């Protein structure tokens, strides 16, 4: 059956008053469609321009391509079916495919705390910075607050240096000499400061105390002659950095030239440069690099660190092995218990089987985040009921959260509790569909119950539920919820690394990017993400090959 664009179907019909005729293909539909498209385009053009201005080229490109696609789908009749996909595909491309592509890109960059901006964003921020030159005119200041807008302030400035020639009144964005100010009913006090100005009220010490934190941030006066407060003085500030054509920054205050090395502005020369390249300031202190910097591609450096740096490789291998072991044992344990219980419940003479089965589903029905937190309480090392019971019978309670082995046992125990009902569910279904006659044959041949189980039931069952077991393995490979909520990957392996003994790859990634206290290393976290990608791809490929389900899927298209 071929797609039939139906725009013109209704026009030739006799009963033209039906809803179908109005909504279907009339001028109304076309106008609505084109109007909506125009709105989308207007939004997209604005958004792409914003993103491009910030240097977010990859995202801007994705948004542009998606917008072109939407236009094509709605303007070309040949692409009619894609109109139905436009919301879904837009979301898929922007929210899934773009992050995937960007993850690959970030894995090859030094995107991290301190280098977390694009070039444009870093330059814009740094060029905004100001400083008070030593030869700048300075003033003593008094703050006035606008009566109309209580968040707007102005300064009355009285010269304190020879370079400052006259008394000034400077609101935000303007500048007047004192003689220009119409005092109205107010007058100057003994210090030459007005007691008030029409539209403004003079602030006392108490009021200034309240806004002391924001006051030094406010830029008074005209934009090319910015006046700011610094301590007891106010003065005309100048732009701190000048951007050169080659992307380097010149510090107008110290006279140091900063070159961007891998996105970090590093001093190249200064008053005192030591022989090994460290730049010292006039007091003999090393000059710091300028933050923020920007992120740049650094080739395979992140991968190299992973492979060559002993302090990273060691913990990484531990995390990797535990990730695999955790997924494997989770599946093995839940499958074993689930199968055992479904065999126990499968006998024909068990009364109330259906109710018992439903009853055992309850742990599976509870949201995992709740179960894990509950278990965290039960397994509390000192006060939890499990350890109290263990200590009651005279044994030492396991250190569920501080011992590197017990924490793993604890996680697997929780996994078992959460997961056995699912395995019971799928094995029950599979058991009931096993052919009965082969067991008759086995009995005739004198096979014992054990032999029947190992040689008939288990192999047949594994063929049936194999794909689900592999899917379960893949799911647990990335089971963030359990590991993160139970112990946040702790106990730590060593102070050198973000990895903990119970961390799996996905929680390790999370710690690298969002963990507190170490700064974010998005580049390296993305590198680990790529390793997980690779693993999931291998598992999935294996699953498709093993079960030939890909052929089945392809046929179902």
């Amino acid at each position: 059956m071929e797609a039939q664009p139906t725009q013109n179907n209704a026009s030739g019909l006799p009963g033209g008053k039906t809803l179908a005729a109005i909504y279907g293909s009339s001028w109304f539909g076309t106008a609505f469609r084109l109007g909506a498209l125009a709105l989308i385009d207007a939004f997209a053009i604005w958004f792409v321009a914003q993103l491009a201005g910030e240097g977010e080229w990859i995202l801007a490109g994705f948004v542009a391509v998606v917008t072109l696609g939407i236009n094509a789908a709605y303007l070309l009749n040949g692409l009619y079916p894609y109109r139905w996909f436009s919301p879904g595909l837009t979301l898929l491309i922007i929210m899934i495919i773009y992050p995937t592509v960007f993850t690959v890109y970030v894995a090859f960059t030094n995107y991290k705390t301190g280098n977390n901006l694009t070039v444009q964003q870093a330059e814009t921020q740094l060029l905004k910075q100001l400083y008070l030159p030593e030869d700048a005119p300075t003033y003593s200041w008094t703050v006035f607050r606008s009566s109309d807008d209580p968040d707007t302030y102005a300064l009355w400035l009285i010269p304190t240096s020879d370079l400052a020639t006259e008394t000034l009144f400077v609101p935000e964005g303007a500048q007047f000499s004192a003689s220009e100010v119409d005092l109205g009913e107010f007058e100057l006090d003994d210090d030459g400061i007005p007691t008030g100005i029409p539209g403004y009220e003079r602030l006392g010490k108490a009021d200034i105390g309240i806004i002391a934190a924001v006051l030094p941030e406010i830029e008074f006066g005209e934009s090319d002659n910015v006046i700011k407060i610094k301590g007891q003085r106010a003065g005309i500030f100048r732009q701190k950095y000048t951007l050169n054509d080659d992307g380097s920054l010149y510090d107008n205050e110290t006279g140091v030239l900063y070159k961007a090395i891998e996105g970090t502005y590093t001093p190249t020369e200064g008053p005192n440069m030591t022989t090994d390249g460290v730049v010292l300031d006039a007091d003999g202190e090393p000059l710091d690099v300028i933050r923020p910097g920007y992120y740049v591609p650094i080739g395979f450096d992140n991968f190299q660190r992973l492979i060559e740096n002993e302090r990273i490789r060691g913990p990484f291998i531990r995390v990797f092995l535990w990730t695999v072991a955790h997924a494997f044992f989770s599946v093995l344990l839940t499958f074993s218990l689930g199968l055992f219980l479904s065999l126990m419940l499968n006998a024909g003479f068990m009364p109330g089987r259906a109710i018992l089965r439903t009853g055992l589903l309850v742990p599976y029905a509870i949201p995992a985040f709740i179960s894990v937190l509950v278990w965290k309480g039960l397994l509390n090392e000192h006060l939890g009921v499990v350890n109290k019971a263990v200590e009651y019978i005279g044994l030492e309670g396991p250190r569920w959260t501080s011992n590197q082995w017990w924490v793993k046992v604890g996680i697997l125990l929780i996994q078992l509790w959460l997961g056995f009902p699912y395995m019971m569910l799928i094995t029950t279904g599979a058991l009931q569909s096993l052919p009965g006659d082969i067991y008759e044959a086995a009995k005739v041949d004198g096979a014992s119950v054990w032999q029947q189980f190992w040689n008939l039931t288990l192999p047949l069952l594994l063929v049936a539920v194999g794909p689900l077991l592999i899917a379960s393995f893949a799911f647990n490979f990335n089971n963030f919820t359990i590991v993160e909520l139970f112990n946040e990957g702790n106990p730590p392996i060593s102070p050198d690394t973000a990895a903990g003994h119970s961390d799996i790859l996905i929680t390790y990634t999370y710690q690298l990017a969002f963990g507190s206290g170490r700064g974010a290393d998005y580049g390296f976290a993305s590198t680990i993400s790529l390793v997980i990608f690779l693993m999931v791809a291998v598992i999935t490929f294996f699953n498709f090959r093993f079960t030939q389900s890909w052929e089945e899927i392809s046929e179902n298209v």
Partner: protein
Amino acid sequence: MFSAVTDFLQNPMARAKWGSYAGRMLVIVLAFGFAYFPLVWIASASLDETGTLNTQKLIPSQLGLENYKALLDSDIHPFATWMWNSIKVASIASILSVMVSAFGAYAFSRFRFTGRRNLMLTVFLVQVFPNSLTIVATYLLVQSIGKHISWMGLNTHGGLILVYLGGALGINTWLMKGFFDSIPRDLDESAKIDGASDWLIFWRIIFPLVRPVLAVVGILTFIGVYGDVIISLTLLKDKDVQTLAIGLRRFISDDFDQEWGVFSAGALIGAIPIVVVILSFQRFLVSGLTEGAVKG
């Protein structure tokens, strides 16, 4: 009666059967103990007014609803807000997701067009990779979007829902497409002859007929979003916008053992809606999950 007993004692078959029954019952009882012990324990804790991990006993010494009151009144742990946030986000995400997915399923089911096969396979393959793998890039993406569209940025429900919707066109579309295929095309054809547009056919004819599968997909999406930890934990920082999954987590960091009773009350209230939904719709939900097992 007497004969039954002698029969039991003398007949090995009957004895084996009874023995096996008793053994099975013992296993089932143990399994129930394992499955329900944590639940009974927190149910008891939630009613125990002493309220701490240390003082709790199986039979509460001071029975009462104090923990539930404390839970709903607390400013430190705004439980009602978290619960509402979770329900709001999960409802919006699942309704939008079902709509987006249904449009796709309709087109896959009813139209034949260039690229259809590749698109279907792409949609299937993409969902193999959970979006938690790109969590870093997703975080940075939402941050970038939020700079320009503030209600879809970090720390907003708009941004969170947007991330959940990324996978709307996925395995659910496949599930729906199969169901859509089972609706006879004759219905579409006759409507078309009457002059109905595709949109009207979808909305007036197909949509009412496929409501069961939409409900199943909607419920599964709701449960998935309600239980999400990694994305909400990454995107939402402020207490008042957080969802239940990460709100409850705050109890661990803040004096977990002292707040045990209140936490237990929250855990129960948070779990019950989902448990009720899953157990009531068990037959429909489970058939989707276990299909592969029987097909083998």
